[in-house]
């Protein structure tokens, strides 16, 4: 899209130099438009192939009854919203929705708070602050399969590191991954650890944009650290916070890998989220059920879209003020 802009704006000096009225104007504009289209075409084609088509296909899958046979033969019956009705009526739906809400909200709340605290902490430079900050990025650099597997080893009921520490201090071991009461907590803990670097990096960058003289003026006025944080850091960081939370929300909504590797949504669906449910329907069993999986996937897209629009509205209101 950006490629069209220079061409359009560059046209104005030309028009000012020789105003060509009437018929001569039309072919030139059309040539410009063609050029613009030519430049935009690769991008449009890319968007079409990799965004619009999969999205359309997902909707198509969700309104047909694609069992394996129909998938190969291509003769799936159109069933309208029956798949959605099945999804809503399924006993897993309520569990998955509740778990998704808890997983997402707790994850991003803690990630944001810890990320912000660390960002503020690293703002004051001290010895080794860069090294330390770099080390906080490690969770981001590790492949997910590695970090999720490591977490599941650490949380193993019998031989896990966490339980051996608990026992060393006289506590009882917890069946982190194998008890229905703890499995959701376990995957949330792992997911929080994975998400902190992202929050730290974005918020730290946001903090760099707050001019230092404001803090100077505040300290001259006698504002303490708490007051400075509440009246300067937080308000000036609001746009960055909003985008961090929105991105965090979208990333967290669609988390499959961490949960799948650690608990596969179990035991007894206690850690299943909408995304995991969708993945399981499509790929997790010996029998792929693409239609319900697509229906659940589309629900997730709608949820993410709603929050996306909320963000846009929030931003517009902020731009106006």
């Amino acid at each position: 899209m950006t490629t069209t802009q220079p061409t359009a704006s560059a046209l104005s000096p030309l028009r000012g130099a020789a105003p060509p009225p009437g018929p001569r104007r039309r072919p030139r504009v059309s040539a410009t438009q063609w050029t613009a289209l030519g430049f935009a075409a690769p991008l449009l084609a890319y968007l079409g192939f990799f965004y619009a088509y999969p999205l359309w296909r997902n909707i198509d899958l969700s309104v047909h009854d694609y069992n394996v046979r129909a998938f190969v033969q291509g003769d799936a019956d159109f069933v309208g919203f029956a798949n959605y009705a099945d999804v809503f009526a399924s006993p897993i739906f309520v569990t998955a929705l509740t778990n998704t809400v808890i997983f997402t909200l707790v994850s991003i709340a803690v990630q944001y708070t810890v990320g912000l605290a660390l960002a503020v902490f690293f703002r004051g430079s001290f010895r080794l602050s860069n090294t330390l900050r770099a080390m906080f990025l490690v969770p981001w650099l590790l492949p997910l399969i590695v970090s999720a597997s490591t977490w599941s080893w650490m949380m193993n009921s019998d031989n896990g590191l966490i339980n051996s520490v608990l026992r060393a201090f006289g506590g009882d071991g917890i069946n982190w991954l194998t008890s229905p009461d703890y499995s959701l907590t376990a995957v949330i803990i792992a997911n929080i650890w994975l998400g902190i670097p992202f929050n730290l990096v974005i918020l730290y960058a946001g903090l760099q944009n707050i001019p230092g003289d404001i803090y100077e003026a505040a300290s001259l006025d006698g504002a303490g650290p708490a007051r400075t944080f509440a009246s300067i850091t937080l308000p000036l960081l609001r746009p960055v916070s909003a985008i961090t939370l929105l991105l965090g929300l979208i990333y967290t909504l669609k988390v499959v890998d961490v949960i799948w590797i650690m608990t596969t949504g179990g035991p007894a669906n206690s850690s299943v989220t909408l995304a995991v449910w969708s993945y399981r329907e499509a790929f997790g069993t010996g029998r792929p059920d693409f239609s319900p999986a697509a229906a659940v996937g589309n629900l997730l897209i709608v949820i993410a879209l709603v929050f996306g629009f909320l963000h846009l509205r929030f931003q517009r209101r902020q731009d106006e003020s």
Partner: protein
Amino acid sequence: MRHMNPHRRSRSAAAAVACAALVVVAACSGGGDDSADPTSGGGSSDSYTWWDPYPQHEAGSDWDQRVQACGTEAGVTINRTAYDTTALTNQALLSAQEGTSPDVILIDNPAVSTLAETGMLTTVDEFGLDTGDIDPNLLAAGELDGDAYGIPIGANTLALYYNADILAAAGVDPASITDWASLTTALEQVDAAGSRGITFAGIGTEEGSFQFLPWFWGAGADLSQLDSPEAIEALQLWVDWIDAGYAPQSVINNSQNTVWEEFLTGEFAFAENGTWQVNSAAEADFETGVIALPARDGGNAPAPTGGEFIVAPVQDDEARYDVTRQIVECMTTPEGFVETATTFAYYVPPTEEGQDQLLTELPELETWVDAVRTAQGRTSNGLGVAYPEISEQLWTAVQSAISGASTPQEALEAAQAAAPAID
């Protein structure tokens, strides 16, 4: 950009370049199913495509050479591609949808009926293959509505490995374990002697069902009725072991590999595992042995058959079938079965002749050959394509019960309510 703007010609040229780039993109993305692609089927007439689920056997390995030898014998070259087991089913379905199925697929037996239902596989009869020698209990896993869609190239199954050192220390004679009661007594003795009892896989995937089935069937339960009293008894057995501490609660997340790793630590007296660990057991730091999985009231419990089937997907060009048949036949002669068995760390041949031949070479495999002879196909007894759904409900019930989320009875009743009805 700004300075070149007045020159319309260069602008158009740029646009032309951009469009040309677009054409290339479109051509690349649109031409994915080009027949030059080695992974697509129906290639040239002297090259045949072959998919199998053994990525651990790379090009040039014994297995790869064996496949190639069968191609050479038929006068063609074989393009072999290996996928992960679950990915293979999805790949096979996708290729069938695109009309680019490979000539031969080796596929895990519960997937055969799923693929057959889509109409993408030829039947054994259409292909003119003789299956008269194959053990009927093994062949049954590849049948759908009375037609056989593939030939087992070998079979594996489950049995109970034991740590002979631990049993000796606890004063347990492995030969005395013939039913559930004697096994539980043995676990009690082992536990009292300070060792850990048994480990198995209760993970929420097909492996969990696979490991539970010998107990389920051993109690006399049937997959068409998940909440029968026998089924509840089988699940209760597992739950009791966990409650008594004979089995760790973490079996809920155990895959069969994890089970084996736990066993190799030397802490566990028993581990439920498969034929594929025979070599590893022989190399363990302690003395190991193996007994058949006991049924509730004595005798061997039917274990589920594992192992791959060789299937031939439908091709547009039927002239290819002739060579494909030669390749399949080369893999399924008695000598071929024994060769596969030894290449694959004890894959038991599916014919009596092959089994006898294997036993003369390796008499210590008798427990395994017996286990394979009593084994039962998961998709057998008319379950076919319903099996994967039933299995999902079964492993969910196992997880609910052993995690304590519900009692075995509640868990299995919920499973039966959610499972597809079998008529």
